[in-house]
């Protein structure tokens, strides 16, 4: 049977074609399988009918404000990194109806929304995305109030993670300590290996359910060579990150530099379009909208995604608290890298690089943090010469 590793979970190996069996097993168990697929020249997350819907043989080229798909020379199923979608759209949906109310004469009667929905399996969750889900778990499930929408969906989801064997142009998960290897929270973690004409997956199970699923896929125990090959590919990915960010001390750095002139420079470029907040897998801000139908007989309360980049976001009687783009860019970046720590005990950033790729003007969070850090250090020790020049 399969070898059990130190943690008591299985490490198995199966042929690449057997991924289809895995998908079928999930469907048989009643899971709607969501995974990456090519659509409109990007790799997005959508419902998969079969493993053939995956972006077979595709890879992505990413840089600041740049995203392009390119054909690979092999038939890798997971040979790319992350695209504009994140899993948050399924766990923390862009729109959710919270309640309904009906007018009854002069009064109204209201009812809570049902939380029933399909059980889902996420196929192809990267390490940074596993970390992002953990970050959102902390925000939405571990506060004084929990989010019932997120809770209902999160409890029903199966996570099949994929270890990255290639780093993207804007990736910096190693800087944030979130990858490229998946370490926890998964049901199954896969590493795809293509070499010497062979194409297989090394599968690590993390839960009972993961065990159950892998057991039904025709597989063999993972041998030392296969395990080492898989580990080697992941280690290679760790060494070729497209970006780096010095995470140590970034909280204090940003909090001490709220009036740094770098914010003005970012503001000159930032369009406050909010793309970064849309693609970011940890951004959680929402707004509440109460709408009625034309007759006024029925009213509904909807929750939808919102962005701190809008003027409306901080509006209080008479005006926005953050009217300038500078303030809004600063708010987003200092929340993500600094104040998130004070609120939730972790960083808000998982190093996925989406905000860099999908910013229309290519503003790079790692570059902004570096610029502030470098100019702060040089300002810390004024030379005696400089002082005497200023005060003759």
């Amino acid at each position: 049977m399969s070898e059990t590793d130190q943690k008591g979970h299985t490490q198995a190996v199966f042929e690449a074609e057997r991924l289809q069996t895995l998908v079928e097993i999930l469907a048989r168990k009643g899971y709607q399988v969501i995974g990456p697929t090519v659509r409109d020249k990007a790799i997005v997350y959508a419902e998969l009918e079969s493993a053939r819907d995956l972006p077979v043989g595709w890879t992505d080229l990413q840089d600041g404000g740049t995203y392009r798909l390119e054909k690979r020379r092999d038939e890798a199923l997971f040979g790319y990194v992350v695209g504009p979608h994140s899993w948050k759209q399924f766990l923390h949906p862009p729109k959710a109806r919270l309640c309904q109310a009906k007018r009854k004469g002069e009064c109204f009667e209201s009812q809570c929304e049902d939380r029933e929905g399909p059980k889902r399996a996420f196929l192809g969750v990267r390490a940074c995305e596993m970390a992002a889900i953990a970050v959102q778990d902390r925000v939405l499930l571990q506060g004084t109030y929990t989010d019932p929408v997120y809770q209902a969906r999160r409890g029903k989801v199966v996570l099949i993670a994929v270890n990255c064997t290639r780093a993207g142009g804007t990736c910096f998960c190693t800087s944030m300590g979130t990858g490229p290897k998946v370490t926890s929270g998964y049901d199954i973690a896969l590493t795809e290996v293509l070499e010497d004409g062979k194409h297989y997956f090394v599968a690590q199970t993390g839960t009972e359910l993961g065990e159950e699923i892998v057991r039904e896929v025709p597989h063999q125990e993972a041998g030392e060579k296969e395990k080492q090959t898989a580990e080697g590919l992941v280690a290679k990915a760790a060494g070729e990150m497209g970006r780096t960010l010095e995470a140590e001390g970034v909280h204090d750095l940003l909090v001490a530099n709220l009036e740094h002139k770098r914010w003005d420079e970012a503001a000159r470029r930032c369009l406050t379009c909010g793309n970064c907040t849309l693609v970011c897998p940890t951004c959680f801000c929402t707004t509440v909208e109460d709408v009625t139908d034309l007759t006024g007989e029925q009213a509904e309360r909807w929750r939808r995604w919102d962005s701190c980049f809008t003027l409306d976001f901080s509006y209080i009687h008479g005006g926005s608290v953050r009217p300038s783009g500078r303030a809004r860019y600063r708010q987003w970046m200092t929340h993500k890298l600094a104040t998130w720590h004070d609120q939730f005990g972790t960083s808000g950033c998982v190093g996925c690089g989406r905000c860099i790729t999908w910013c229309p003007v290519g503003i790079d969070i790692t570059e902004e943090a570096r610029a502030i850090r470098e100019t702060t250090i040089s300002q810390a020790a004024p030379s005696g010469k400089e002082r005497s020049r200023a005060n003759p």
Partner: protein
Amino acid sequence: MQTLEPILAEHPFFKNLDPKILQVITGCATNVVFKAGEFIFREEGDAQEFYLIRKGQVALEIYAPGRGPITLQTLHDGNILGWSWLVPPYQWHFDARAVEETRAIALNGRCLRTKCEECHELGYELMKRFAFVVTQRIEALTLQLLDVYGNHRS
């Protein structure tokens, strides 16, 4: 005969003032009482005096046609009323009206200005104290100007 010196000495405005200088100032001082509703001075009038309010309430007012008299500020025990005597053309810009019976010390402007020219130390002490009063008043008036309780729309 009892002089006004001890009364001036205990007024907050003259706190810590050298008794010799206080004696000089007393020469320009008179005791005054205003009845409730009485005008202490009127806009455009000659600013010949300023007042140390001992007890009572005084309203600084300005009259706007169609709106009537608007109270800009009320002054109370311990406050100073009037500084237009300090600078030419020595004219009042507002009305000051006693809201209730008000006792005060009136200090004659011309008398003080002459003595200040003669004794610069006296002049400096008065200026220091007035500068403090004026800055306090301006800060308070600035807050009033902000209309913080108003309904502001951008």
